[in-house]
């Protein structure tokens, strides 16, 4: 599962030269089970699973499996949308439900793919890490007997002593930060270990990312809270509107803090084709930590700037309006007074809500204990005129011309015992007030009042406040995931941009008293500049081993019996590395390369 390969490690000087030629150690992929019986099959399955081919297929499957989640609504993101989608597609919805297409990213099949992928990754990366440790502890693989077989090769003859040349080459390679080893009349060296380090780091950091994900999904929790300007909130279960905990983070683990929302600033685009677009949302708050709510600190919460308290973060996620209404009963007693949050229905913040007056008292008409409720619309910018049948629609999200539209319900007092949604009216058992045979309805501007029909008292629209909704979130594991992510990038840079290569130098005394200096290089990468590097090394080495004049300056010394002439048929047959070695010889350095 990587784009470089490690070699199998230990190399003794007299070992098969194949070891030296192998920069690759990807396990040989067998076509069938190696042994007989269950163990053989198991081993074969494991080999298959940890092979590059299967890892690639799994990776491809993972991206394919992620697609449906982006096209079908997901419960994790918007459960409401899922309901709407199910209602609209009644025939396929049950099938989709069975296939877990509404929870793709936590589905059995998606999990199976990434778990298999990570198992495959572990089965590949862990042994390779050990191999790599072995490589680091051993000497670079000794020079192959026949250096001409290497992808890049240079040679010349010199007067200098063979030993001196080898020692000079050893020094030179060391100076150029190769790991070099001088033994048996040749120098073996290798450089670019950071490529494999980066490669291993990248793949290991994926596990860190996964661990961060897992930790977050096991030990995080979040709750939502809507706060009206002037009101406060303390972080306890009873005050939260909703709470979603996990195995290791329940309602009793909530951090102890609280805050008061002093006021809320919203700003909108007033002209152009983006009219009504939000430009600023800021919640101005004062918060406290622990149980002492007397020491308040001022703070702002904006969309990209959550408030961090302890291990929790408070995010601003929504806002709206809360009309302030005073209801008096027939006797003139105030039975309800205060702001009520209305929920936005569209981008221009046409808001709906219900004002529930549960302590109305006794009805004038029949002296029975009743409750009242007002259902209505709040329009921050109301049109001059609107038809009640099409429904009121706000023109702009800012409060340029606010209007409250109300109608009233009356019913017998008492609680049904069932939990009630504060934003919705359960009108069962209640009757809507009428006036002159029509449903009683009123449009109120701030400061205006309404005398209810049938002597039910009065309602005044005193004004309005803004509210903000917050998400209180506790998510551990972010640091682990971030560390993993940073390591992944560093690893990627190492594994993609560092070239790993081997260089061998061998100086041999020839019968005629001169010395033959041979240099060969091997690299396995897409943009190997090994030829140029070898040329530079050779030029530097000529300080210690000056070249003798050759009959043909373009051809290196050619009188070695076992060497083949480059460019001839023999070289063509043998120029490439052995078939089981690196599958591709180093690409030639190319002056056109766009590096």
């Amino acid at each position: 599962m990587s784009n470089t390969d490690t070699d199998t490690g230990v190399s003794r000087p007299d070992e098969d030269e194949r070891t030296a030629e192998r920069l690759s150690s990807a396990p040989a992929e067998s076509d069938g089970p190696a042994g007989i019986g269950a163990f053989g099959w198991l081993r074969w399955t494991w080999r298959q699973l940890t092979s590059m081919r299967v890892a690639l297929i799994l990776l491809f499957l993972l991206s394919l499996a992620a697609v449906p989640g982006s096209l079908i609504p997901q419960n994790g993101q918007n459960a409401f949308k899922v309901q709407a989608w199910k209602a609209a597609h009644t025939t396929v919805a049950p099938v989709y439900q069975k296939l877990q297409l509404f929870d793709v990213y936590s589905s059995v099949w998606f999990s199976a793919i990434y778990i298999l992928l990570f198992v495959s990754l572990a089965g590949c990366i862990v042994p390779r890490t050990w191999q790599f440790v072995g490589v680091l502890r051993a000497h670079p693989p000794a020079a192959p007997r026949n250096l001409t077989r290497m992808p890049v090769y240079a040679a010349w003859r010199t007067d200098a002593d063979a030993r001196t040349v080898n020692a000079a080459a050893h020094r030179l390679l060391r100076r150029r930060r190769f790991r070099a080893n001088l033994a048996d009349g040749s120098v073996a060296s290798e450089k670019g270990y950071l490529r494999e380090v980066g490669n291993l780091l990248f793949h290991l950091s994926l596990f860190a990312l996964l661990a961060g994900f897992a930790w977050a999904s096991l030990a995080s929790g979040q709750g939502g809270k809507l706060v009206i300007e002037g009101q406060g909130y303390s972080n306890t279960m009873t005050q939260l509107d909703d709470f979603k905990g996990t195995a290791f983070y329940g309602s009793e683990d909530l951090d102890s803090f609280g805050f008061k929302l002093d006021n809320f600033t919203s700003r909108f685009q007033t002209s152009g084709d983006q009219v009504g677009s939000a430009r600023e949302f800021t919640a101005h708050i004062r918060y406290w930590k622990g149980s002492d709510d007397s020491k308040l600190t001022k703070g702002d919460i904006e969309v990209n700037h959550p408030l961090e308290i302890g291990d929790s973060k408070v995010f601003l996620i929504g806002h709206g309006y809360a009309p302030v209404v005073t209801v008096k009963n027939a006797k003139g007693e105030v039975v309800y007074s205060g702001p009520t949050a209305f929920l936005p229905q569209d981008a221009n913040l046409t808001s709906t809500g219900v004002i529930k007056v549960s302590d109305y008292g006794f009805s004038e008409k029949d002296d029975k204990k009743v409750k009242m409720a007002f259902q209505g619309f709040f329009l921050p910018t109301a049109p001059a005129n609107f038809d009640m049948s099409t429904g009121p629609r706000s023109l702009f999200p800012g409060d340029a011309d606010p209007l409250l539209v109300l109608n009233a319900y009356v019913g017998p007092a008492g609680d049904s015992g069932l939990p009630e949604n504060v934003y919705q009216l359960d009108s069962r058992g209640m009757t809507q007030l009428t006036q002159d045979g029509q449903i009683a309805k009123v449009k109120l501007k701030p400061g205006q009042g309404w005398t209810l029909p049938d002597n039910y008292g009065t309602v005044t629209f005193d004004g309005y406040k803004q509210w903000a909704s917050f998400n209180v979130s506790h998510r551990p594991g972010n640091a682990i995931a971030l560390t993993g992510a940073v390591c992944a990038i560093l690893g990627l840079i190492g594994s993609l941009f560092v070239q790993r290569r081997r260089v061998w130098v061998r100086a041999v005394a020839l019968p005629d008293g001169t010395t033959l200096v041979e240099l060969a290089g091997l690299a396995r990468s897409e943009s190997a500049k090994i030829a140029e590097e070898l040329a530079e090394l050779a030029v530097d080495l000529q300080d210690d081993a000056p070249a003798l004049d050759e009959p043909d300056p373009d051809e290196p010394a050619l009188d070695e019996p076992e060497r083949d002439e480059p460019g001839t048929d023999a070289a063509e047959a043998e120029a490439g590395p052995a078939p089981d070695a690196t599958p591709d010889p180093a690409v030639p350095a190319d002056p056109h390369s766009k590096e």
Partner: protein
Amino acid sequence: MHLASAVDPSLADLSNKLIYSAMAVYLFGMFAYMFEWTFGSKGAVAVRSSEQSSLAETVAAAAAGKPAKAAKKVTVTVAAAGGGTTTLTRTALAGEGATVVTSGRGEGEEADGPGAAGGSEKADLAGRIAISLTVLGALLHAGGVIARGLSVTRWPWGNMYEFSCAFALTMVLAFLALLAAKKQARWLGLPVMVAGLLTLGVATTVLYTDSEQLVPALHSYWLAIHVSTAIICGGAFYAAFITTALYLGKDSYDKRIAAGLTTGPLRTSASVWQRLPAASTLDKLSYRINALVFPLWTFTIIAGAIWAEAAWGKYWEWDPKETWSFITWVAYACYLHARATAGWKGRKAAYLALAAFACWLFNYYGVNIFVTGKHSYAGV
């Protein structure tokens, strides 16, 4: 309630005019590149590039001027993929430390084509005019992007229109940078112009929005980091896509020639393919661009996740944009792995690269237009 202001309408208007002017200039540039390709068809012979011959001349001059003994000369034999060999000679003049590299080619190596102009002077002139027009267009284009940013004093990539303009600009600038670095990249001129014009055309017609302030969700310094790197990645992926597509074309052409046919794929003229760089060069180039950009793309996704954590409270929520960024990432990862695996090199890997780019393209246009997610700003 406060009213949003701080938009300079004259600068915003100037920006629009500059973008339209840039498009007009690019259009003429595109025609000039077409002339270059058309005129160049007569002189098309696969020869050693001018770069190579000039290097050879330099070496010859250096060798002629100095006594032979003062020079250290090394010839490196390189085994080529086809089984042949190439040599690379490095000459160092003693005492001066200067080294000159020259490379000769053996029979095993395919030669790069001479470029769009072939050997024709008329075509070369057309090509030079085309490059001048590209530079002029890029200046106007850059002016447009900068004016757009100045008109609202923020980074000019707050919506798809602005993103597209910036993204087309990076593409053109990357091409000009290659030319400035004396790389043989003039053959990229025509595809870059077509891609740039397409991007700008879609931007001005479908995606246009007036220059305005940003929605609160974009009030973050991560806009400068996350979106800038996304723009750079987009430009680079586009360039790699063009190169990959040309590689596939050139590779089929080579196969057709080997099979005794005389035209390129889809009966295209052989002279066009002859003038392009060798298939292996194109293949290598597209790999390099993709490999270079992949860590940056990884960074873009991670920067986006950090921003998401600050804005929405969770760094990864499988929002459609996140999902498709992930799919794109996995697709490019597949491609990079495939390149390292025997049996998947060449055409198969190239198809993977094309698929990965298709994912990127869908992530950019498709997700914003057809899928609703959290990455919708200013209408789209």
